[in-house]
């Protein structure tokens, strides 16, 4: 771990960055935010802007996947006509 290469981010800035990231991901997943959280994002709009590009592009939580039903388990013989 090379401490000399660390960018000059304060812990406070790091905390803000983390919280912005989590809140943005929550919004992406369709969850609600509290009024304080919405205000937080407004206050740190610059961080929001920088974090938006770093969010994963794929859907994160869409619920259970579709599943096929296997019908062809047994044969049924129909009456010969």
């Amino acid at each position, binding site marked *: 771990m090379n401490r000399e290469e660390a960018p000059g981010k304060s812990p*406070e800035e790091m905390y803000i960055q983390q919280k912005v990231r989590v*809140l943005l991901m929550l919004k992406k997943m369709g*969850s609600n935010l*509290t009024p304080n959280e919405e205000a937080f994002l407004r206050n740190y709009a610059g961080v929001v802007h920088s974090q938006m590009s770093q969010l994963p592009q794929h859907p994160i939580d869409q*619920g259970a996947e579709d*599943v096929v039903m296997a019908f*062809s388990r047994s044969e049924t013989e129909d009456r010969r006509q």
Partner: protein
Amino acid sequence: MSLQMSEAEGAVKVEEWQQTFYAPDSGIQSGATTIRDEDSVSARAGESATDMEAQYSLTRAQRVRAAMFPETLVEGETALTAHSNPDQPTNVQRLAEPSQLLKTAIVHLINYQDDAELATRAVPELTKLLADEDQVVVNKAALIVNQLTRKEASRRVLMQSPQMVSAVVRAMQNTGDLETARCAASVLHSLSHQREGLLAIFKSGGIPALVRMLSSPMESVLFYAITTLHNLLLHQEGAKMAVRLADGLQRMVPLLKKTNPKFLAITTDCLQLLSYGNQESKLIILANGGPESLVFIMRNHNYEKLLWTTSRVLKVLSVCPSNKPAIVDAGGMQALGQHLTGSSQRLTQNCLWTLRNLSDAATKQEGLDGLLQILVSQLGSDDVNMLTCATGILSNLTCNNARNKALVTQSGGVEALIHAVLRAGEKEDVAEPAVCALRHLTSRHPDAELAQNAVRLHYGIPAITKLLGQPHYWPVVKATVGLIRNLALCPANQAPLRESGTIPRLVNLLLKAHQETQRHGSGAQQTYQDGVRMEEIVEGCTGALHILARDPINRGEIASMQTIPLFVQLLYSYVENIKRVSAGVLCELALDKQCAEMIDAEGASAPLMELLHSPNEGIATYAAAVLFRISEDKSSDYRKRVSVELTHSLFKHDPAAWEMAHAAMPLDPGYIPDGVSALVSGVCVCFCLNVGVLTSVTVGFIEFIHLKSPSVTSPPSVSRVLHHVKLLEIWMQFTLHMVTLIYPWMASRWTLSYMSNICQK
């Protein structure tokens, strides 16, 4: 031998008859009049009566003859009637038809006996001739035998002779003459219409010979061979095995390329008889290109019986895991879909069952637009078989296929499926696939929201909620909770779902399923009911409640049902999906401050901290959000710990975050920079540990000097030095205590992070 008797023969017969036991000449053939005592003219009646009776007698005989042998009437001659009342037929008239029948039967019997006798006399000789070296002789013999088979009596004699049947079989397979082969094949074909004949053919090794004939270049031989084999497969025990052993399938499948529809109908029926319940036969058909040929027939023919027999073969093959993809790849779905709207009910039904079997292998097929639209229209049927198939096919074809989902949605599929659910009642074979199809339509495609709204607009929510009630059929319950979860994604559906009582039903199901999982122990043991794992029900119900909790009123209702302890407990589940949905629902509930406090009171922090490290982004995000929300009123140290844990999880790839984490940075602006606080902490610790040592060393040094040079360490000087050292000691200890009071844990935290830094390196 003609069945028709000429008059001369008839006369001869009559003469013979007269010499038998039978009655004296009745005059039928000879024309002699019948004289009866009662008809005798009485002398007492006088000459006119005698004349009249004589006339009647003559007429009656003629009339009887005419009635029984109308062919003997001379042209223009008619039978005179005693009287001409049409409402009261005479005895002769009444007996005319029965007499005709009796006559015909007697003639047949006479002929039958003749035929039988003739055949019996001929069979031994013909048997020998069929084995003759001269092919011309064999050919002639075969012709005669073929002619004998035209009559029932002689046919029976032939089939009762194993030697004859064997000779025919040998002649058929050994001859190089096509005509001989044709005759012989025709003989076997004729014999195959009776059970006795089938047995005779079977015992004479006819099956391998007939299979070989399937390679004949002569169409008529092919026809006789396939038809005879068909009769054997239908009615002769052991024939199927014999045909398989003789490589019959390998010879039959190439015949599917013929064009004659009736021939193809028999061939496909043979394939169905051979492959039903026999996996090896299905694989042989596959290996010989059967699926492609069968699909070709479905696509290019319109003879109903052929389509029906072919669909039956496809239905049999559609349960084979190897044949299934081959049929689909050959365009089977599209070809079968062509025949769903015809007038043949049996064809439509067979195609539907086959499509249903194939559907799970066709989820990525293109070109099914027409089929999907037809299936949507069939959802309006009252036929339960049709409903079962249509819902099942739609369920699978909409699985993970955004295009099909959109098409079905736009074609009115949502409304049609809701009606199918309503009509299904307790028929799970309809309800389950219908609900699954609705679940597919309401998620993961551009028109999902349209479908979610359509369910509500077509009054589907109450019907769907009702499916959660008892008796529970768990596959339907599982599909329904998934559908409800999707429906709740639409804000307009939240209130209707609540009003239909969805939330208490979901909570009760969740409790019941969770109890089942707990009853059977924790860990990897899974509990099944109706083939469904209870863990799936737990996941599904919690997932639905998660989305329902996005509505504030629903949120309150969910929390009021004492669900928070259960959700916190579910954070410990070994099933990752359950962790995700329980973290998700807690995240929504934590929006409310009171609920956030309850969550914290249940000890959710510990499992949530662990979940921050989950490789699942959703889980980690929900866990972080819950921790942020429950830590709003917590100490800064707690929030710092969360931040550090986040850095080790969600942000572990961020070097700056690592640096900050290992430097143990504070979270609030009130914190002093880390470097200075670390220095102060270190100095304090050092002095705390070392100041007493310093004083002791100083005292010890002075005593040593005093012992060595007492004059140097005069009491006043020593006292002054010791006094100053003690003052220094007291001041430093005081300072140290003040520092430790102001910055609690400073020394230990610095030590810990210093140690962890060492470990990371």
